[in-house]
């Protein structure tokens, strides 16, 4: 028994020594190691994450931590200075409770949002008027639009979601959607639309796949080139906000995000549109003018 106590003490001492040893031996590059954190929009997350992986691969000892949490979280965290980058689907000015003073906007990309419907609806085109009528609940069955006799199931994104704000502002021309199902992620929305007869919702271009049917509006198809020429109106910027002008690693990383290499390779794959390719720009109040917005 005494021996057991002795063994216990030896283990404790060895662990402590090993701990110190490990601390001393921690990589010498640790002093060069830098890490920054980006938090916020789940829509922007995959892009920034993919870019950060490439960036870290090219620059040893650099650690870019990309988290989701939603645009609200991104903006409140950058406002409070807890993180270096705040990702948002919306202009800081559009978000209630945020003081945009001191925040610097970096428009990283443009995303288009398209209505999607369940396959069995067999409708490929709607007018803006019809779209508004559907989402405000004035039309409740697809046969009223020449489709099959199936009741319409509306599916919304959660209140405050960037995609929803964009869709209501530019797709429904400022009309608010009727109270209906709400889901807080594009993946779930797509899943529900694909499995529920008569369902209609909206997602950004990147999420459209074979399982759901995208809908043209007033005969205009939801394509990237239509967004660039502002023929397709339902689009928004993806922003990264910084507290004051970016410095150091943050600055370098933001430049990296905007360079041609990333914009041409990653953006296409992910369904984002490069800000450089835009023929039109838009202010947070919704004023459109010609130019790339850079």
């Amino acid at each position, binding site marked *: 028994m005494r021996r057991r106590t002795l063994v216990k003490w030896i283990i404790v001492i060895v662990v402590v020594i090993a701990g110190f040893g490990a601390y001393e031996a921690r990589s010498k590059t640790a002093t060069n190691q830098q890490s920054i954190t980006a938090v916020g929009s789940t829509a922007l997350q995959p892009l920034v994450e993919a870019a950060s992986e490439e960036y870290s691969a090219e620059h040893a000892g650099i650690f870019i931590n990309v988290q989701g949490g939603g645009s609200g*979280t991104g903006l409140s965290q950058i406002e409070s200075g807890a993180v270096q980058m705040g990702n948002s689907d919306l202009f800081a000015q559009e978000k209630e409770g945020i003081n945009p003073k001191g925040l610097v906007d970096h428009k990283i990309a443009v995303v288009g949002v398209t209505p999607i419907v369940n396959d069995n609806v067999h409708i490929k085109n709607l007018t803006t008027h019809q779209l508004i009528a559907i989402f405000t609940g004035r039309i409740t069955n697809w046969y009223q639009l020449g489709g099959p006799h199936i009741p319409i199931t509306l599916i919304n994104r959660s209140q405050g979601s960037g995609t929803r704000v964009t869709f209501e502002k530019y797709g429904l021309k400022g009309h608010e959607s009727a109270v209906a199902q709400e889901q807080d992620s594009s993946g779930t929305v797509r899943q529900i639309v694909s499995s529920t007869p008569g369902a209609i919702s909206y997602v950004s271009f990147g999420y459209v796949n074979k399982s759901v049917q995208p809908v043209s509006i007033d005969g205009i198809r939801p394509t990237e080139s239509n967004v660039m020429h502002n023929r397709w109106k339902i689009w928004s910027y993806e922003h990264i906000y910084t507290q004051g002008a970016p410095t150091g690693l943050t600055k370098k990383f933001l430049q990296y995000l905007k360079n041609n290499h990333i914009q041409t390779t990653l953006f296409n794959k992910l369904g984002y549109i490069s800000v450089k390719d835009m023929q039109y720009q838009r202010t947070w109040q919704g004023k459109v003018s010609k130019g790339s917005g850079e």
Partner: protein
Amino acid sequence: MNRTQKQSQIAILLLRLIAALVVLILAFLIGYIFITGLPNVSWKFLTSPAKAFTAGGGIGVQLFNSIYLLILAMIISLPIALGASIYLSEYAKDNWFTSMIRTAIEILSSLPSVVVGLFGFLLFVVQFNYGFSIISGALTLTIFNLPLLTRNIEESLASVSDDQRQGGLGLGLSKYETIVHIVVPAALPGIISGVILCSGRVFGEAAALIYTAGQSAPALNFGDWNPFNIDSPLSPLRPAETLAVHIWKINSEGIMPDLTQVSSGSAAVLVLAILIFNLSARYIGRKIFEKMTSMN
């Protein structure tokens, strides 16, 4: 055969039916997960890192993170829960104050995990400046786990017969020695069930971790086991997406083409991992129990 006996037989038959039905439901669930998931599982899938938007990503890092986070969370929460449940079951007087404490602990467990997650986020990630890290995640999971674990252990302690406690006290031992050396070992099987139950919740938890341990899983350097290096698997300060968070993430915002395969494969792996964990926990528990009860 008289009426009561017949009644008894019918009732017991009914119980068997209920049990069979439950088994059927459970078997269906697990079968569903395995049948849709297992065909997507391969050695490569288990070992390679995840890919954000191209096909062929694996879940190696996430799997490791889940296990590491679980172990860390258990190391933190088990002693606290054990201590608290010892106090509640052995020392606390049976009065309104004690029952108020119990009620408070019980209602804490009904909080949605996102609330606990945000609390952990504001406290550990922001206030303590631990960042999105394993340690923030483990501490948050501790908060999330403590109520259930404490109540579970308390129940197991209470199920040990009072005779055992009297025996210890009658020998002139302190209550504390009696509890630690007699009651706790006797309650060990129940305590292990509790630990397994809570481990399951840790494995499956997503919402509490999104804001604390984070949803990114940077590639790890599996050659470096020095916990002070940030790319070491053991580093408690690195962000760590767990398997459950990964499943949640790719289902909500994933844009890789093989999303369904990765998602169902991950679910199957998760269930398998839990199975292996439970079996080994039970095995180790039994060994410890045998050692404590028979050796000396």
